[in-house]
């Protein structure tokens, strides 16, 4: 999952990047509204966390620009302006969720998880379920029936992305774009390695390879 964080307060951004990074999200960070308008519309983000009090262009305007440009990426607004009038304004501008500062880091994580599932049309539930697997995003482990299987951070990221897009064919470059932030090197061989790890832990059938096209998450095939 690749996230764009637009927040001008450096200490808060540092905190968010480190906590969200631990949750297995790849994060790009911007501080200026003008950059955000451009980068948000061009890079394939899965979700955008947007602060409203931005230098350059105000956050609401950034959001309006994105929406009028046809960007449909879910946007979670992060703001200190907590009044209902401002909340309604934010959602009217096209936000998908609204979190007021100060917040517990855990709440932000839950909101992000819920928003990602909601966008994929999945029901709001504590664990991500797909094809017989249950992914516990808090503990970063997967369970099949009664059996708990531990995952590394990279495997967790990959599996979560697969489970949020079950049945879709995902190319290696697509996966690399959505699993790593803009600064990390995107090596498609790394994806291959992690897919193999997942297959070793969950069985060969869990991820199909479509030659020349990419991977497809098939689950345990129930």
């Amino acid at each position, binding site marked *: 999952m690749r996230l764009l964080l637009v927040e001008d*307060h450096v200490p808060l951004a540092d905190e968010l990047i480190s*906590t969200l990074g631990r949750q297995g999200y790849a994060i790009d960070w911007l501080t200026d509204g003008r950059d955000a308008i451009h980068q948000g519309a061009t890079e394939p983000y899965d979700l955008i966390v947007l602060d409203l*009090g931005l230098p350059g262009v105000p956050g609401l305007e950034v959001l309006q620009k994105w929406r009028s440009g046809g960007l449909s990426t879910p946007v979670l607004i992060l703001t*200190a302006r*907590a009044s209902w009038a401002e*909340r309604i304004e934010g959602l009217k501008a096209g936000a998908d969720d*609204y979190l007021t500062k100060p917040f517990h*880091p855990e709440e932000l994580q839950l909101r992000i998880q819920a928003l990602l599932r909601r966008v994929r049309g999945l029901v709001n539930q504590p664990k991500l379920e797909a094809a017989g697997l249950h992914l516990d995003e808090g503990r970063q482990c997967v369970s099949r029936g009664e059996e708990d299987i531990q995952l590394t951070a990279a495997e967790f990221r990959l599996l979560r992305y697969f489970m949020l897009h079950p049945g879709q064919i995902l190319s290696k470059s697509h996966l690399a774009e959505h699993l790593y932030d803009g600064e990390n090197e995107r090596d498609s061989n790394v994806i291959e390695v992690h897919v193999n790890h997942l297959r070793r832990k969950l069985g060969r059938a869990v991820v199909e390879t479509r030659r020349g096209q990419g991977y497809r998450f098939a689950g345990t095939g129930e």
Partner: protein
Amino acid sequence: MRSIQRRLSLGLISVLLIIGLVLAQTSLWLFEVGLQRYLESGLRNESELLLVALVRGPDGLQLDEHRLSPGYQRPYSGHYFRIDFDQGHWRSRSLWDLELPHPGQPGLHADLALEKTDQSLLLLHTDYRKFGQTISITVAQDYTPVRDSFALVQRIGLGLGLMALILILVLQRVTVRRALRPLERAREQIFQLQQGQRSQLDERVPVELEPLVAQINHLLAHTEDSLKRSRNALGNLGHALKTPLAVLMSLAEGDKLAGHPHVRETLRDQLHHIQQRLERELNRARLSGDALPGARFDCAAEIPGLFSTLRMIHGEHLELSSEIGAGLFLPWDREDILELLGNVMDNACKWADSHVSLTIAKGADGYCLLIDDDGPGIPVHHRDEVIGRGNRLDEQVTGHGLGLGIVKDIVEAWGGRIQLLDSPMGGLQVRIDLPERLSPQLPGTESTRQLS
């Protein structure tokens, strides 16, 4: 304060009455004096004729009967004389057996009554010397017909005067009402302002009212502007305080404090306190209260936005329904109402199983807001704790706490009442009664209409 119209009427009536009476009475008096002068010359003529008719006869003075006018012969004819001389006196035949009143002084005398008749006499008493002796001649004329016609003139004049007075009053009323119409319109507009039906006064008014209306409009704009500015400043303050707070909260939850559970606990507690306090005070400071008279909340335009926000926060599984009178406006600030409804509805959504309903109705003397949910509700003995007076934030039940705290602040600032009741839907019903917004200085339309 009494109405301007009534004052003008009273002033005009008294001035007109005083001037009219003085003028009428003076002119009548002057006319009467002039008339008496005229009659006096006639009487003097008569008395000189009588003097001429006095001739020296064989046995002293004699009155030449042929020279006397016939009016002196007919009894009570209205023309009388009496001639006094040294040897005795003569009276006209018309006096019959009556005695002419005898004034001491020579000259004209009015208002003397002739005994036994109701004739009022105008009488001229003159002293002459003829044939070596003093002769005093008194001639009199009945003044009653003149007096009667004077009374008639007086009555007619009074009637005409009264009619003129009434006419003037009616015309004055019409004129004043026309002249005061802009004032009345401004008064109605201020009333509408209080009701939230308009946000500015009409600027097209007569020159005299222009500064007043302009000043009121300026004040309104100024209030609105400073409210906006202070809200903005509060927003900035909130932003400046809450962002670092978010950093601290994130730090407190982070791994770096894993080895110091006590420190983490204290940090969490204190940060929570700061957050709650900040939230409440900032929210309270944002309230416009009664500062802005032109404020209003358009239910039909705003409720859908609020509902979609709530749906987004709480998920689509909740059914939100509303029952609001068509075209209903609430005469309070939009942000305040949104804050009020948002918090109560948010709370209801948190606890509801599947359905939350909002009812807004206008009653006889205020507005009634009902928020129902089908959740577990709150037991009766806990309800006071939730909205009880003087409860501190940190003592309030989580979930029902902060949101309802600010709701209570808003409702109290408007002089309203909040109650927690059993909902017919099974859960909690929050009933908020808000009184009609009317400033006490402004009486109802009907009562002022009567004065104008």
